[in-house]
């Protein structure tokens, strides 16, 4: 019921409804890419040298690239890469960051100190620089890009959830639970975790967009996904050389990237409004 309420609330505000449907649409597009893309073989790499750098037309709505591949098909296939990277980065970062932050905040003491100094080390680097460092040392490729981004991402979640856990563990119901003989594990899972998770949901929603953007940046710099895999960052990187004469090559993947990142940001805001009752009133 709660999820349905949430969806309904997101829908009330026009802009978040647009963002929500855009993401749903793009995800469907990514899933059914082989059925939607006009030239599926070209999307995954097969060059068509006779049709190089054609401007947008009915045959190729987004034009073709320097190897004669249909840009629209590659943008559609690129959504697959982007979503896989975006969701996996956030999922892995949550998987590491959430439990560490939760235990760190709940236990406090030495464990907390060690974990916090560790996150300090990671947070001392600008996130993209750290991801660059990692992926240049473990090599390029989609999987390594995901790993590199997740490694530079988890400390943010650890910090966030730790702060929440510290404030939640002092709430009377947590003390009450421990006075009633509820075990520590149960207290963390049943009381601390559910009551500290809401800001994480907001952050994670917004971060899918940011992770996609950073993955594109890695690809742009040649450290992420490698050709001929269709990827927006990679397409922009290749297309930038042709930008002046053949604008459609880098512009369409760029627009796709923009739409996805902005949509996730708006959706994140909407989720925040849903979770924070003080903001909720304004939406309704």
């Amino acid at each position, binding site marked *: 019921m709660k999820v349905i309420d949430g969806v309904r609330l997101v829908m009330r505000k026009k802009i978040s409804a647009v963002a929500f449907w855009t993401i749903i649409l793009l995800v469907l597009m990514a899933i059914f890419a082989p059925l939607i893309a006009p030239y599926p073989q070209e999307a995954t790499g097969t060059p068509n040298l006779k049709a190089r750098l054609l401007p947008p037309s009915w045959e190729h709505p987004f034009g073709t690239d320097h190897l004669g591949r249909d840009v629209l098909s590659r943008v559609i296939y690129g959504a697959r890469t982007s979503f896989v990277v975006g969701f996996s980065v956030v999922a892995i970062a949550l998987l590491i960051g959430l439990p560490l932050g939760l235990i760190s905040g709940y236990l406090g003491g030495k464990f907390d100190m060690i974990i916090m100094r560790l996150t300090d080390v990671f947070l001392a680097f600008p996130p993209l620089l750290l991801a660059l460092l990692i992926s240049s040392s473990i090599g390029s490729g989609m999987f390594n890009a995901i790993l590199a981004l997740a490694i530079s991402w988890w400390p943010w979640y650890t910090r966030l959830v730790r702060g929440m856990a510290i404030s939640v563990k002092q709430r009377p*119901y947590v003390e009450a639970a421990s006075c009633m*003989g509820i075990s520590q594990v149960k207290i963390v899972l049943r*009381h601390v975790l*559910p009551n500290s998770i809401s800001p994480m949901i907001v952050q994670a929603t917004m971060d899918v967009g940011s992770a996609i953007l950073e993955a594109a940046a890695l690809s742009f710099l040649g450290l992420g996904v490698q050709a001929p895999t269709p990827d927006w960052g990679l397409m922009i990187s290749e297309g930038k050389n042709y930008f002046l004469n053949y604008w459609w090559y880098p512009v369409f993947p760029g627009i796709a990237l923009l739409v996805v990142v902005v949509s996730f940001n708006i959706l994140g805001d909407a989720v925040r409004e849903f979770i924070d009752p003080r903001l909720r009133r304004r939406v309704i």
Partner: protein
Amino acid sequence: MNVKLSIRDLFVDFATPLGVAKVLNGVNLDVYQGEVFGVVGETGCGKSVTSMSILRVLPQNAYVRGSIVFEGEELLEKTEEEMREIRGSKISMVFQDPMTSLNPLFKIGEQMIDVVRAHRSVGKREALDMISSLLADVRLSDPSRIVSSYPHELSGGMKQRVMIAMALSLKPSLIIADEPTTALDVTVQRQVLDLILELQEKYGFSVLLITHDLGVVAETCDRVGIMYAGDVVEIAPIEKLFSNPLHPYTRALLSVIPDISGKKRLTPLGGSVPSLLHPPTGCRFHPRCRFLKDVCRQDKPILLEVEDEHFVSCHLYGGR
């Protein structure tokens, strides 16, 4: 009399950034089988710290010395797992603020089942049956509806009843009630106190009632301990305390209860509660005491039984 809980020379220090706060300064008290024992004192006198030391749920910066014997067993020597088994099953607690003592995200039933299942290996169905009869015990009329309600759907009084039911769920022999009525309306306060007394009669547990309200004490307790700045200064049966208060602090407390005729002038106690970072030497009450003697500055008076069942810790009544 059968002693249920016996606290001897309990010292609790807290390490704070400003220094060591000596919060409990050798507390001594006994709670008998089947009685309601009240602990009265101002905010910060160590009432709650005493109750938290019994359950061993003090924060990590607390250092505890002394002895707390419950049903013949030393609680301060128990392992954490042994303590966990005692909490909620043998010694239970009712809290000050029912509004925030329940997790807002889970239904009442789930939270009560958690408590039962933390101590007994029973199925959810069985636990639910136990709970329903408890909710009837605390006079909640529609147990099945309460069980499937979220905390925000209940009133403060109902929540406190739920908390009492939860505390009772494993038939503990001692219930610590830490200001159970402070957050409630006066009319609801009365009902909750009556309920606790009624259940106490029915199940025969002992109650350690912590409060700062002498009115509550007068209505509910069998015996009372008065605390001041980490010391128990006087312990007496309720009639003796009100008819013949011995300790200067107790007298001062009683003299500020307003008289309903409005004719009696109140005589306030001068000064304020001392800092526990730098507590007064000797008797901690001496800076505010009208009967100050030299010895009070140097020696801490011991708790002496000056008449039957009436203990006082003051140099006016002998001792060292």
